[in-house]
């Protein structure tokens, strides 16, 4: 049985399948394993960041600092690997610790100072990008052999597609995100907060801890995305990943999560990422469309999905009889 709550997820999935079929009928090469592998590899960092963003949005918040944190992580890694002798794994741990703490700090400010997430994470966005600049304005190459070793881990499919470690890491992150969202108390608390902060408080959801946790996860996953990005480009660059937060938000919304919070699926975000990647691939294949069409198509998709969600909400409220005394919301 299809529950009404899972309908957006199904629509996202169907959109992806239909879009892929259409693309493939125009360009048969779209079916090659290269394209599939590219979708995973090229979107790995975005996907990982989007998992964190899903949690933030599910709780009814927003995190604008994601792209900047990715850039900061990359630069930090590159600089620390260049200037010190520590092993990349230790550096990874350090980056994850810093970005998680950064996210937690933003969550703390949001909760304890009762400031809107929009503004707090906006300041966080400036701060992280600025910190990246201070570390280095150059693109700093990473030349550690451990990086080469990591980059050489891939499975090569028959027709040339390379399924790389980072793509697998993204899939793992999504799986972990799904488990975290649906199978842990923390995840349930996130949904609860998205359903209504006051009610969640009354039902015993530890708001402070959860808020800090949510932004810490988003920060930490942005850090992880930064690590993946540094593997992707073998460098740290303070101008990298500008505007990734918008792509992540778009993927989350296209994936069927309500921006008001409370409803949605981590798995939906995965398909949101794939749909956006597919659009980009199609535009490259076409080769004549201005790539700015990507933005326009994503905007149109956003619009479609928002309308769809609106329609669904409307349909479900119609089914219930109006509560006495409450006139239709204006």
């Amino acid at each position: 049985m299809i529950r009404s709550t899972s309908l957006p997820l199904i629509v996202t999935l169907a959109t992806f399948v239909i879009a892929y079929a259409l693309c493939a009928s125009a360009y048969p090469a779209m079916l090659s394993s290269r394209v599939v592998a590219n979708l995973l590899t090229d979107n790995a960092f975005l996907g990982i960041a989007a998992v964190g963003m899903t949690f933030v949005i599910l709780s009814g918040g927003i995190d604008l600092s994601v792209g900047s944190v990715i850039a900061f992580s990359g630069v930090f890694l590159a600089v620390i690997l260049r200037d010190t002798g520590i092993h990349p794994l230790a550096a990874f741990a350090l980056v994850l610790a810093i970005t998680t703490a950064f996210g937690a700090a933003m969550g703390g400010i949001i909760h304890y100072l009762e400031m809107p997430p929009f503004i707090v994470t906006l300041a966080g966005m400036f701060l992280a990008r600025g910190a990246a600049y201070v570390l280095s304005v150059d693109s700093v190459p990473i030349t550690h052999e451990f990086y080469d070793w990591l980059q050489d881990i891939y499975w090569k499919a028959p027709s040339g597609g390379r399924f790389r470690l980072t793509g697998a890491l993204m899939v793992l992150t999504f799986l972990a995100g799904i488990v975290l969202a649906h199978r842990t108390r923390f995840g349930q608390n996130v949904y609860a907060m998205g359903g209504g902060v006051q009610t969640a408080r009354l039902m015993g959801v530890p708001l402070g801890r959860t808020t800090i946790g949510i932004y810490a996860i988003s920060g930490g996953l942005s850090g992880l995305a930064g690590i993946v990005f540094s593997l992707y480009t073998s460098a740290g660059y303070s101008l990298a990943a500008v505007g990734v937060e918008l792509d992540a938000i778009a993927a989350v919304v296209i994936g069927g999560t309500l921006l008001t919070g409370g409803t949605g699926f981590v798995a939906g975000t995965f398909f949101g990422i794939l749909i956006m990647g597919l659009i980009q691939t199609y535009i490259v294949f076409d080769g004549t469309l201005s790539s700015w069409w990507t933005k326009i198509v994503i905007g149109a998709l956003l619009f479609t999905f928002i309308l769809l969600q609106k329609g669904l909400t409307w349909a479900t409220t119609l089914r219930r009889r109006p509560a006495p005394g409450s006139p239709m919301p204006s």
Partner: protein
Amino acid sequence: MTFKATLLAGAVALAPVAAAADDDLTIGFSQIGSESGWRAAETTVTKQQAEARGIDLKFADAQQKQENQIKALRGFIAQGVDGILLAPVVATGWDDVLEEAQEAEIPVILMDRTVDADPSLYLTAVTSDLVHEGKVAGEWLVSEMDGKDCRIVELQGTTGSSPAIDRKTGFEQGIAGHGNLEIVRSQTGDFTRAQGKVVMESFLKAEGPGNICALYAHNDDMAVGAIQAIKEAGLAPGKDIVIVAIDAVPDAHLAIANGEMNATIELTPDMAGPALDALQAYLQDGTEPAKWIQTESRLYTASDDNMAVYEQKKSLGY
């Protein structure tokens, strides 16, 4: 795209083969974006060059993002194009995707900027020398000042971008050892006219209008913005403040012709001509081009016929 080409592309992707019919080439071009007039002109010229040679050019604008460029490159490889032109947004991080191209036997030619990767991974690089450009600008200013004291302000490109870094380095090399020249202020103008104007305004305020003798801008767009700021401050650009910039876009020629600017170093937008020449030769009979095809960095000053150059360039989409 024609149906035939579609089928061809599909066949190539499923069973990669290197060569295709000579006169039916499909070339992918991954452009950085359209952040400046020069960049737009380069795109126009590349499209013109491809059209003139009957090449099917697949154009992808990366909106200044490396991740988009890597995606585009992988898309080209998956599609099985015959060759790839890449104008890299940064120097680092291309090894993996270039390896994939090499494995698929698709030659890659770098345009405009080079990368930090093993040279065997690409066919050749068609670039100007960014450091050299800066150096030419610096040396020109040294000779122009002829021993007089000069306080210079510098409008940097986007913080962290390689032209900004290289052109700064080159300029500093150019003026090195000449104690009469001193860079007193340096700020980023993001390569845009708007920021060029804003930052120049603050330079004028901070230093006092009479205390600036020369402006070095990392591109012409910022210089054009700065010229407006100088005029609004009641000074005569080109006379009260000597202005040298890089790119030689039409508006810079116009400014020089009007006496509002003193010199610009041309960065030719025609990188695609030599690049496609080399590519076609390679695809035809495997001619290995030189690893670096350097374009000319020509200096334009008031002694050139700038109006003529302006007329010639203005239709290129700068």
